[in-house]
């Protein structure tokens, strides 16, 4: 049978895996996927069929025609056809014409649904390659239509879901597609629930010869989706061995030889050279970049300058990246600086370079699927009520295609021969129809070209990081005191909570810190044991004595992905390939199900079955979110560098963060308050002294004009210095000037903000005089600055109210003492992590600092509003709330 999977985007309700499973249970020997306008589901379908022992047939539904690939040539034709049809139409649509079918007809079978198409199709594909497609779904008129079509050989038609029960979901998807309610969708919906996969005899028995012809046609189709041989283009002009040897130190020699031999054996030489070429380009253009992820386990990557860590020095495990016998090549993830507004070269230049240098390039897709919230909203819209069965059914179904954040495919052949392409929104960019897992399954290689704001911050400050030795005690002291606002990876509330207890004192411990405060270790209950062991409050213990060498550096807890591999090898005798499969299943969707399948092997291989079962549970908790050690080290380096800047160049560091927002956890206002606490003087934006971006000199930070709402381009800088408002009015739009006045940027011209506004509103002619206008209080100035910049240099709002608040019995962050207390603060951060069992974490800010509030699940809390009043018990670091309510702030 031919199937629409849910990759037909709202025109199918079952995953390829569900369709294949159903086909297997029905005893089908072959099955075809024919999704609408693409091969989005082909890779998953193919894998599922191979695993189930079913003959997979690949095709697509285009306009009123369905095409099936007879062979590799047909697959290439179909890819080219879809690519061109997508290219000719606006995004999300295809432009199908008969001339296009004619242009790419080789190796394809054509299935038509309308009698009037017979002649045309036969002229293009030949009489023996055109079939009628009987879409018999027990609807009124189906039978008549099918009999009319039977003047040519016919095959059974398509289905839209695997089981009859999925018909309701299919109806809901139809309503979502058309934007109608279920009540108003009668004309758009299927009239019954008969579009499910079932034995052909049930529906097509009455049509003579159709069952036999269907089976025969599918058996004639034979396509292999394995493109390993096309995965990387040949790279000319450099020799990997020579490049590495030029950088290698004597102690690298042996490991380098081993790794180079493995790379050659795995046919990855060109891949490494391509990555080296991209990194070299970035470095040449002054674009900060750094390899992350498992690639940092590679000595070759280090010697090529792709990653910053010497894996030998840090005892990294190459097997996490590559190992003997692996068939799929791992990604190398690269972070590049993203330079907002700076005009400096950045990641976009790198992507452009890749498109220009390499012939066959495409962005990797990602499928936007229904998450719980979206599913709930859509079901409510369609049904008028929240029906849990439908909401659950929708979750995970792809809604539309999007572009992966940084995934790029570089291939040795035109990519449309491997997977169809679609135009991306950005001019000249194309996106392939597969996501990263599908690309991986097909044996292709992708690169992750990612954007990392902190790299731009590091560049903007302009320190020479090559001489950093990562051992400055004062930097670690600052981190250990949780003075980490703005510091990469360790600035979150959860990090700040644990830092005073873990107190990292070197790069390795910082890497552990980066890796430990994450959902994986939290869900696996690994965080508290680590912290207690680090504090010496509990002895170090291991799930099994055999794991001591593997888990010693993390005090007995499983923290790094490398450790998962080593645990599997040490405890259950897994081969490297088995261990890699276990690790890989962690990073896939539905990883828990995939890992459960490996549990049996894991336990079977272990001597101590009980301990193995328990250890496997720990691994399950760790699934999908764990870091690899090499990645943690890469990030720890950036964390240290950013901490170093905060310690020694706080004004420059803060200015650089302001210039590269959005990034990190905190709003500008909080960053500036923190900078003040580090002795930085914050100067207001000034029409003549400020640049477009914020600047720093010594311990002074001058706010940039880009912080003012509505000023998105450096127009103002062009005509500096300004002598008067009227000079500004010649160059800038009125609303921009108004914003500048309100932000206080014109105060240096010697007229009050309101005086300037009066003149501005009056128009182009200078007024003889300005009337007496109400004077502006500091409070009002602060409000107008907040309105324009979401921050104020006049003062923190609560500073104006402190006397009154103290009189009312409120504490401040400075006066908090253990015990019952009451505070008011500006809400700067609120988190409700799924791992926190209903606890809410809020960070409040007053003019003296931050207050960490924990709201237990049994405390009714109204957290709407910028200012909150919290009554609770202060316990050293945290204020445990008993009552939380919004607080109206009125002028003093």
């Amino acid at each position, binding site marked *: 049978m031919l199937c629409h999977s849910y990759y037909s985007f709202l025109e199918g309700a079952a995953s390829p895996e569900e369709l294949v499973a159903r086909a297997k249970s029905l005893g089908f020997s072959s099955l075809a996927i024919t999704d609408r306008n693409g091969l989005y589901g082909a890779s998953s379908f193919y894998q599922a069929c191979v695993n189930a022992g079913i003959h997979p047939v690949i095709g697509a539904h285009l306009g009123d025609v369905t095409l099936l690939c007879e062979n590799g040539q047909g697959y290439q034709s179909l890819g080219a056809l879809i690519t061109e049809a997508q290219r000719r139409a606006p995004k999300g649509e295809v432009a199908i014409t008969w001339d296009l079918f004619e242009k790419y007809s080789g190796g394809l079978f054509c299935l038509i649904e309308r009698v009037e198409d017979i002649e045309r199709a036969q002229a293009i594909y030949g009489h023996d390659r055109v079939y009628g497609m009987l879409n018999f779904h027990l609807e009124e008129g189906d039978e008549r239509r099918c009999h009319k079509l039977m003047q040519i050989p016919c095959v059974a038609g398509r289905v839209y879901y695997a089981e009859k029960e999925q018909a309701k979901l299919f109806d809901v998807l139809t309503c979502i597609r058309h934007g109608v309610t279920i009540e108003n969708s009668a004309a758009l919906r299927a009239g019954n629930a008969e579009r499910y996969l079932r034995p052909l005899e049930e529906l097509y028995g009455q049509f003579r010869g159709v069952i036999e012809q269907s089976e025969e046609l599918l058996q004639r189709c034979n396509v292999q989706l394995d493109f390993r041989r096309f995965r990387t283009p040949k790279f000319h002009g450099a020799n990997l061995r020579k490049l590495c040897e030029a950088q290698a130190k004597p102690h690298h020699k042996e490991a380098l030889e081993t790794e180079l031999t493995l790379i050659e054996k795995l046919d990855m030489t060109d891949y490494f050279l391509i990555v080296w070429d991209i990194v070299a380009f970035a470095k040449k253009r002054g674009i900060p970049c750094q390899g992350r992820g498992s690639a940092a386990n590679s000595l070759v990557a280090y010697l090529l300058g792709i990653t910053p860590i010497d894996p030998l020095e840090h005892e990294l495990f190459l097997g996490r990246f590559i190992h003997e016998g692996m068939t799929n090549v791992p990604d190398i993830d690269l972070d590049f600086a993203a330079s907002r507004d700076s005009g400096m070269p950045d990641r976009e230049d790198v992507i452009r370079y890749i498109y220009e240098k390499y012939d066959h390039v495409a962005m990797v897709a990602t499928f936007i699927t229904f998450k719980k919230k979206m599913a709930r909203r859509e079901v409510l819209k369609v*049904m008028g009520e929240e029906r849990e069965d439908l909401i659950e059914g929708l979750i995970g179904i792809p809604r539309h295609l999007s572009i992966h954040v940084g995934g790029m495919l570089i291939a040795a052949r035109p990519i449309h021969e491997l997977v169809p392409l679609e135009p991306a929104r950005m001019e000249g960019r194309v996106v392939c129809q597969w996501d990263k897992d599908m690309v991986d399954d097909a044996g292709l290689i992708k690169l992750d070209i990612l954007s990392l704001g902190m790299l731009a911050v590091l560049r903007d400050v302009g320190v020479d990081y090559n001489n950093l030795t990562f051992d400055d005690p004062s930097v670690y002291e600052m981190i250990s005191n949780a003075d980490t606002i703005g510091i990469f990876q360790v600035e979150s509330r959860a990090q700040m909570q644990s830092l005073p207890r873990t107190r990292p004192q070197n790069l390795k411990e910082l890497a552990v810190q980066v890796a430990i405060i994450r959902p994986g270790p939290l869900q696996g209950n690994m965080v508290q044991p680590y912290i207690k062991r680090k504090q010496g409050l509990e002895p170090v213990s291991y799930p099994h004595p055999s794991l001591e060498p593997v888990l010693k550096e993390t005090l007995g807890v499983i923290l790094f992905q490398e450790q998962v591999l080593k645990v599997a090898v040490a405890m259950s005798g897994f081969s490297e390939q088995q261990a890699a499969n276990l690790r890989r299943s962690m990073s896939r969707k539905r990883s828990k199900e995939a890992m459960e399948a490996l549990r049996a092997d894991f336990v079977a291989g272990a001597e101590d079955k009980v301990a193995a079962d328990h250890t496997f549970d720990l691994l399950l908790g760790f699934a999908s979110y764990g870091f690899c050690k090499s990645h943690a080290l890469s990030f720890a380096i950036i964390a240290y560098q950013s901490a170093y800047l905060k310690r020694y160049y706080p004004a420059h560091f803060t200015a650089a963060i302001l210039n590269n927002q959005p990034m990190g956890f905190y709003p500008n206002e909080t960053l500036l308050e923190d900078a003040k606490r580090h002795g930085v003087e914050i100067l207001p934006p000034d029409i003549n002294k400020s640049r477009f971006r914020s600047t720093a000199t010594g311990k002074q930070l001058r706010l940039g004009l880009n912080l003012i709402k509505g000023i998105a381009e450096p127009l103002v800088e062009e005509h500096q210095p300004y002598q008067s408002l009227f000079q500004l009015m010649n160059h800038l739009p009125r609303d921009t000037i108004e914003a500048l006045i309100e932000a206080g940027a014109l105060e240096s011209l010697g007229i009050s903000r309101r005086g300037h506004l009066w003149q501005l509103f009056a128009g182009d002619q200078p007024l003889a005089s300005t009337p007496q206008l109400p004077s502006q209080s500091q409070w009002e100035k602060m409000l107008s600055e907040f309105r324009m910049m979401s921050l104020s240099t006049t003062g923190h709002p609560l500073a104006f109210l402190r006397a009154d608040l103290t009189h009312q019995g409120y504490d401040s962050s400075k006066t908090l003492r253990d015990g019952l207390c009451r505070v008011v603060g500006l809400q700067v951060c609120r988190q409700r992590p799924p791992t926190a069992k209903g606890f809410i974490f809020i960070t409040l800010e007053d003019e003296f600092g931050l207050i960490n509030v924990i709201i237990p699940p049994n405390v009714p809390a109204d957290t709407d509003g910028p200012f909150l009043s919290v009554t609770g018990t202060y316990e050293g670091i945290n204020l445990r709330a008993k009552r939380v309510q919004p607080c109206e702030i009125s002028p003093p």
Partner: protein
Amino acid sequence: MIGFVRIMDNPHLLFSLFDEVEVCDDGAFVRIGKDIPPFPMGVASSPFVARLAGDKRIERGEEAHFVGPLPLDVLPVEAETIRRLKLLGFRLLADLRTLSYDDLALQFGEEGEMIYLRCRGIDETPLSPTRPPHSLEGSLDLEEGDIERDLMGPLFSQLDQRLVLRMHFSFSSGQTLQVGFSKPTSSPQKALRLFKERLATLSFDEAPATLHVALDTVAATFHQLSFLGQERRRVIEACAHLRPNALMQCVWDEPRARLRERRAHLESLLADSRRPLCVPRPINKPHITKVIERWRVEEDWWTARPIHRDYLHVRIRGGADKRVFVENRQWFDALS
């Protein structure tokens, strides 16, 4: 003096009580003589102050004192003007009196001149009396086979913004049945409740042939607009309530059913979903000589009464073609 009434239970009363009535978006101005107004309203020498007066009477000479502490938002000027005034630091009407006429006129043009007057409580705009709207009514012929249509829809779309106060059914026998009220009620909510109650207890001796809906002309003023704005859903519910009544035609066509059984059937229809229902006509299994086509309908799975029918286009003994369906093992005539 000018009176201003913001919320009116009986707006048509204004036309009978006052000679000059000016209906505006949020109420009505009336010209008041020397008599005390018959119900509470804001009274002042000018429309601007009367509108702001609530239910107070502001005597001549007291206007400036009264408007001084009011916020800028009460000024009848563009929102942009208010925004600018606030940015310049003004909060109350009294604050604006520090600005000269020239300053305001130069800065805000005609609006500036008006601001100068209004912040002192001065408004010399004359009343522009309005007339009550004309009557509006419509009718709809009910025909055999119309039973699945939304009977009230066309009428209500014509009378979209008005409250239906009278409705009567005409029967082919000449009998009429009026539903509604002989005169306007002071409470729209009460009107609707009574209206629905009346509909629910309706009992016809025969199927209605015409439905006539009329609107009280005088009452069709602003309070009813707002009433329908908020209560539109309930009016639609009332219409939905009417639909099952129309289906009685089908039930009563069944000649063998006794009156008590018919009524029971009717009540069960009324008690269930308000969706338009077609009452199928049960038949005995026909003598089929040929099945021409078959199909299946599975619908309304989200309701309390899901439909699962196997339809057949058949030829029956005697040579006639017929569409029938089977549901819960019962045969039905598909054309019912």
